[in-house]
């Protein structure tokens, strides 16, 4: 159960090797999370994340594997995670995603479509399964990892940004649909974060490491923030940037 400070005990992470998810798990495990189910594609990397979670205080860290291009398998993957938790789940973190290579992918129907599967279609299918299980439980929270890239899509990363935009908008509707169910959804919108996913990319202003993002998440969970921005100033920066005329937007963001 979540305690008075919004600290969960049982956590499921879809995309358990994500650097941001791992930073969040480290903090949750150091607080009250004693069961952390880590799900993802790469069993060896998941085992490493599981060991890290135990180092930080988790007691049980089962692993579930799935392939995020296989949308039909999402229901099974989520059900396996809940079964592996062995208790009612307090928090599901949806951190599945990949940046891809815009210039290589944009003219390749196969790769462009696959990116949309991983960043949008699989998460949507998984959220449907999570929604059903948590509503049946009557409590629990969902953290969906969106991105500032979803607020206004950039020319240089429109495949990733477009898919995240879909997920972001869908999640706000899903959050509204949960009113009165005892379940709630937090939407995380980080700016550019230094991770293995973004390694080698040019760093825009307001780039941070993963720790400030994890700190914002833990604070957002504690106070029940529906949308968590990291760094927080992005909330106001994007309010302005999203309304810039297209040419100016391009010049500022796609140099």
């Amino acid at each position, binding site marked *: *159960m*979540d*305690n*008075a*400070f*919004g*600290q969960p*005990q049982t956590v499921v992470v879809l995309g358990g090797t994500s650097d941001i998810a791992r930073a969040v798990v480290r903090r949750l495990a150091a*607080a*009250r999370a*004693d069961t952390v189910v880590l799900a993802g594609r790469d069993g060896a990397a998941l085992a490493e994340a599981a060991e890290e979670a135990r180092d930080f205080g988790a007691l049980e860290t089962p692993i579930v594997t799935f392939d995020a291009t296989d949308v039909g398998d999402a229901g099974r993957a989520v059900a396996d995670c809940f079964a592996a938790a062995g*208790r*009612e789940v307090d928090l599901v973190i949806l951190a599945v995603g990949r940046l891809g290579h815009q210039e290589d992918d944009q003219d390749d129907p196969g790769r462009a479509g696959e990116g949309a599967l991983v960043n949008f279609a699989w998460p949507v299918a998984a959220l449907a399964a999570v929604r059903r299980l948590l509503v049946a*439980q*009557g*409590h629990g929270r969902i953290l969906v990892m969106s991105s500032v890239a979803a607020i206004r899509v950039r020319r240089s990363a429109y495949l990733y940004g477009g898919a995240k935009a879909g997920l972001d908008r869908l999640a706000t509707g899903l959050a509204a649909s949960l009113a*009165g*169910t*005892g379940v709630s959804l937090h939407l995380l919108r980080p700016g550019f974060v230094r991770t293995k996913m973004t390694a080698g990319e040019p760093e825009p202003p307001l780039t941070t490491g993963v720790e400030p993002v994890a700190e914002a998440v833990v*604070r957002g969970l504690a*106070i029940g923030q529906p949308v968590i921005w990291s760094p927080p100033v992005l909330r106001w920066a994007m309010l302005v940037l999203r309304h810039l005329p297209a040419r100016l937007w391009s010049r500022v963001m796609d140099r």
Partner: protein
Amino acid sequence: MSRLSGWGRTAAVDAEVLEVTTEEQVAAALTAPLAPRGLGRSYGDAAQLAGGRVLDLRGLDTISPVSPDGEVTVGAGASLDALVRAVMPAGWFVPVTPGTRQVTLGGALAADVHGKNHHRDGSLGAHVTHLRVVSPTGIHELTPADGERFFVHLGAMGLSGVVTEVTLGLLPISSDRVLVDTERFDDLDGVMAAMVEGDHRYRYSVAWVDCAARSGRGRAVLTRGDHARADDLASATLRPPRPARLAVPLTAPPGLLNAASVTAFNEMWFRRAPRHRVREPQRLETFFHPLDGVRDWNRLYGPRGFVQYQFVVPDAAAETVHEAVARLAASRVPSFLAVLKRFGAANPAPLSFPQPGWTLALDLPVGPPALPGLLDMLDEMVVAAGGRVYLAKDARLAPSTLRAMYPRLSDFAALAATFDPEHRLTSDLDRRLRLREG
């Protein structure tokens, strides 16, 4: 579905509430998991079940006539307030009362509440002579002669069965006043020495400690007293307590209670207390239940609510009390006046909180980022000292820490299972601390 929380207004949940007025309805409801609830005055998550069913027992509110030797049989859903109003005009008072009358007898028993007289009269459980308990295995009539099958229900937080009726011995009184001696102390050493030296001379004793004072020395006001006899007063009356005349109409904005406002309040409160005054007649409700004069006072803590942290440590670990007060002062986490008291002997109940020694209770608004870590650190100090925290107040303990504090948890779980083999009695507190898993 209803939105429910404890008195601290943290971790609110949605649950289905079943109101019952008979034992048959209680038995019928126990065919599936549920959490028993009374007036919702435990501070944390003891009387809620997120997404599940909550059994509202306030309808079991009968109060029998008082027998000539002072025994009364009360429905578990009746409040201490209703009981006091019913028995006071005839010269009886409850043998133990917590800081509010707005608790049910069932809830008071589930927490095995204590009052300002624990050092000589023990907890509520010490005055109970008979219990009726409905559980999935049937209806059980129990007395202290039943040993552990009786004591398991005291302090069980509602997890061993649904107590439907409590018989207890009342205290005869001949006036509605308490004669109170008040003393002010500039530091914790002074007040603790005075309590060790003189508490045995008083039925009631409690100290209010200012933990916000930056010195960290913990100045304090000690109040002690006993019921006034009719011949102590010019004219003795037996008027029951008046209902609350003030109320907090709205939830306060976040941050109203911050380090500065709490420090200012504590300063004013400390200066108002007399340095030394003896045998001042005070109304019972003024002495025992000052906060009952303001309805919904928990709203002052703002939308995020507050936690109460109450621990007990043995006499030999008095240093832990000093350390806790000093750490709290140093952390600048705002804390309203803390309550310090000495406990007497424990009873045989496996989950009962009181044990001989010092108990300190702190009210802390949720919000300061340092608070969760500070309380985890206090937990470690309390465990190291051989102490424990009070489950009726708890909303944030870790399961492993709980086990270090309550070494008889496995006895409790085994006994509770004899009344409820399929674990139908549960709560968010149970799910968080896994109390029934032992």
